[in-house]
């Protein structure tokens, strides 16, 4: 995981490499030009050397002629040898411009050597005239050689004119090449380092931005870093941390929601307990008194009143005992019937009640005081306000895993807003509306929902002027 280090090292290596390449190229070409200059200079030197050596040979010849000795003869022979040596070397100097003159030149050297030899020979034969004429010739030829050297060099300059121009142009080109290469590399370096630095700083910037967002409490933004260095590693770690925090927060929120729900049900419980306490004011006294009143009415021959009072007492007792307990549908139906009896005593013929029940369903569990408030509701809205009274029908049907309890009336009907209010449990306690138990429809719905843990426990349909139908959907098996 040393990517940044790698990047830096790579950059340095590239820079060094390019520099080395440039250096090599420039040095190579410089070296080449130098060698070429050298070679040309060598040519000049060699030509000059020919001239010098031939003059030297003539001088040595002269010395020998003036005072012949073994020693001087050796010197003369040496210089003759050196002249013929350099004559061989001249071979390499040939080019298309000077081949004519160069051949002449070499022949001249040959002539010089011959003349020298003849001079020496004539000298040895004591032929003075001949010797002198050959010596003069040798001197002349040596002069010619010097002159031809100059001619050759000037020819050389002619031949190499273009070459010199080329070399000069080459070196100026090299200079320009160096300049442009330098410019190119500098610019490339700037660009490269710009992107290189960007490659390092951009992930850091992203990371900084992400950290700032996190610190502001936004945990839902992804952190994406596309590079593959340490920063990316950092970013991945950071992202994992963000996801973990996010999950934790969601969990906490869910828990808080649960808590709130719990709190609510507790409040509801308390409310109902309070209500039950309110209606418990001396309940046994009330219950006993009602029983006494029932017996007294019975004794006084008013059987109907007696029954009525007994029903009220039964209702009261059920109400007291069963409010915070689950009961069976059968219990509910019987207490509901007692309530109907009481209401019938009140409304006589105006209240007509029809019950169609599948008794096999009576074992279904449901919260206490569920049916009575619904019936009471129907009585209050469909029977009480109307002079001609109303009909209330109750149907209990078995539907496989459910039991449907439908209560229909033929009252004025409810407006949809009210239905909505009831369904969303917004209706406040309707004690003021004269409920005997103080338990309203909303209360019933809430308790059903709490017990079954589901929302669709009730269905209300209503048509203005035709009636209202409330259906309870009770599951046979209560989920615990």
């Amino acid at each position, binding site marked *: 995981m040393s990517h940044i280090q790698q990047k830096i090292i790579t950059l340095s290596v590239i820079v060094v490499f390019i520099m080395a390449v440039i250096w090599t190229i420039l040095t190579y*070409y410089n070296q080449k*030009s130098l060698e*070429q200059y050298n*070679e*040309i200079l060598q040519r000049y030197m060699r030509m000059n050397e020919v001239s010098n050596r031939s003059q030297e040979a003539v001088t040595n010849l002269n010395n020998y002629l003036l005072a012949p000795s073994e020693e001087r003869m050796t010197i003369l022979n040496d210089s003759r040898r050196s002249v013929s040596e350099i004559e061989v070397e001249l071979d*390499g*100097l*040939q*080019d*298309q*411009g000077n*081949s*004519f*003159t160069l*051949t*002449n*030149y070499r*022949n*001249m050297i*040959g*002539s*010089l050597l011959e003349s020298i030899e003849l001079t020496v020979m004539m000298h040895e034969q004591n032929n003075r005239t001949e010797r002198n004429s050959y010596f003069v010739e040798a001197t*002349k*030829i040596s002069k*010619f050689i010097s*002159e*031809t050297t100059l001619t050759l060099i000037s020819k050389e300059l002619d*031949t*190499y004119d273009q*070459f010199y121009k*080329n*070399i000069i*142009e*080459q070196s100026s*080109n*090299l200079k*320009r*090449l160096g300049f*442009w*290469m330098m*410019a*190119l590399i500098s*610019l*490339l370096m*700037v*660009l490269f380092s*710009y992107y290189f630095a960007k490659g390092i700083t951009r992930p850091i910037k992203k990371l900084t931005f992400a950290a700032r967002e996190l610190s502001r409490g936004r945990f839902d933004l992804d952190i994406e870093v596309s590079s593959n260095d340490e920063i990316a590693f950092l970013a991945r770690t950071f992202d994992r941390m963000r996801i973990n925090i996010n999950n934790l927060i969601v969990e906490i929120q869910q828990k808080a929601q649960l808590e709130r729900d719990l709190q609510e049900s507790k409040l509801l419980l308390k409310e109902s307990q309070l209500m039950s306490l309110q209606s418990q004011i001396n309940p046994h006294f009330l219950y006993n008194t009602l029983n006494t009143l029932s017996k007294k009415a019975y004794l006084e021959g008013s059987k109907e009143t007696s029954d009525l009072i007994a029903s009220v007492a039964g209702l009261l007792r059920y109400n007291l005992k069963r409010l915070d307990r689950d009961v069976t549908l059968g219990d509910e139906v019987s207490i509901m019937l007692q309530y109907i009896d009481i209401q019938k005593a009140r409304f006589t013929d105006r209240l007509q009640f029809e019950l169609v029940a599948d008794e096999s369903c009576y074992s279904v569990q449901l919260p206490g005081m569920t049916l009575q408030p619904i019936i009471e509701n129907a009585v209050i809205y469909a029977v009480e306000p109307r002079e001609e009274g109303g009909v209330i029908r109750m149907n209990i049907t078995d539907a496989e895993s459910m039991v449907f309890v439908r209560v229909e009336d033929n009252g004025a009907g409810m407006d949809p807003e009210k239905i909505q209010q009831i369904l969303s449990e917004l209706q406040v306690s309707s004690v003021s509306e004269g409920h005997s138990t103080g338990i309203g429809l909303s209360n019933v719905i809430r308790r059903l929902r709490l017990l079954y843990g589901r929302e669709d426990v009730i269905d209300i349909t209503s048509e203005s002027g035709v009636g209202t139908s409330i259906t309870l959907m009770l599951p046979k098996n209560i989920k615990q």
Partner: protein
Amino acid sequence: MRKLLVFLLLMGCVISLCFTVYYFDKIFRSGVAIPGSEDVVEIPYRLVVISQEMDSPFWNQVERGALSAGKELNVGVEFWGTYRSNMEDFMKHVEIAIASKVDGIIVQGLNTEEFSAITKLKAAKYGIPVITIANDVSMNESLRKTYVGSDHLLVGGMIADQLVLDMQGSGKVVVMVSDREEEYQKLRLQGILDSFENNPNINYKIVTSGDSSEQITSATKQLLNEEPDTDAFIGVTSDSATAIVQEVEKRSSLENFHIYSFDDNPETLNYMRKGYIKATIMQSPEEMGIESVSLMVKWLKGEVLPLNHVGYYTDVKVLRAEDVR
């Protein structure tokens, strides 16, 4: 802003890359090489043409002819020489040619002992063939292989005939010759005299002067003083006619004189255009150059053996003043 900067940098990169590649290519391609010995063509023969009058129009044409013939025959030909009247230097060139053991010497003949000694002794000793060009040396004394140039005997006759024609067979003629007794001058004079012998009404006088233009001028001056009734001049040596014209011009109308030359240099042609010089000889210097080189090569190759000892004459023709106009 940053984008602009990056863009500019990129542009800079591209531009400098272009230049770098351009110069790199240039350097790479030019590949300066020392003119090497690898493309040297071995020349079979080295011939030298030596002149005494380099850079004269006549010899420039000879040079052109010789060099082109050399190129065509694929032999090396060099044109050496001296500017006017530097005989010592001229001899040195001949000696250098001999010392260089060239394969053939084509030389403007010189009628001096030194010249004949050198050509005879040294050149022959080294076995170097010598061809004279434009000006011959006396055949018998020299070991030259042949002569290439104008037939000066014929030329002299042609000019003399033209003069006789122009003057209707009678008049007084002065023939100006140089004291340097060149072979061509001798031959031209011979030709003139041969022609005059057939025309007895022509009075002629041979005047010898120096070679330089001052000497010719003074000789002319003296002549005009001594013999004012002269009708015509023939300048036998090169450039003598122009000097005569200049001198005569100062004295009297040129219309009365018939002046003849043997040169076709621009100055002469100019005077001819004016009518001052009546006629001259057109030689064929280029042909001489070509002919001499090809003869030399032929001899060296053994194709023509021996060469015609008398010589190979090139075309000549009389150029009259009317032709020039």
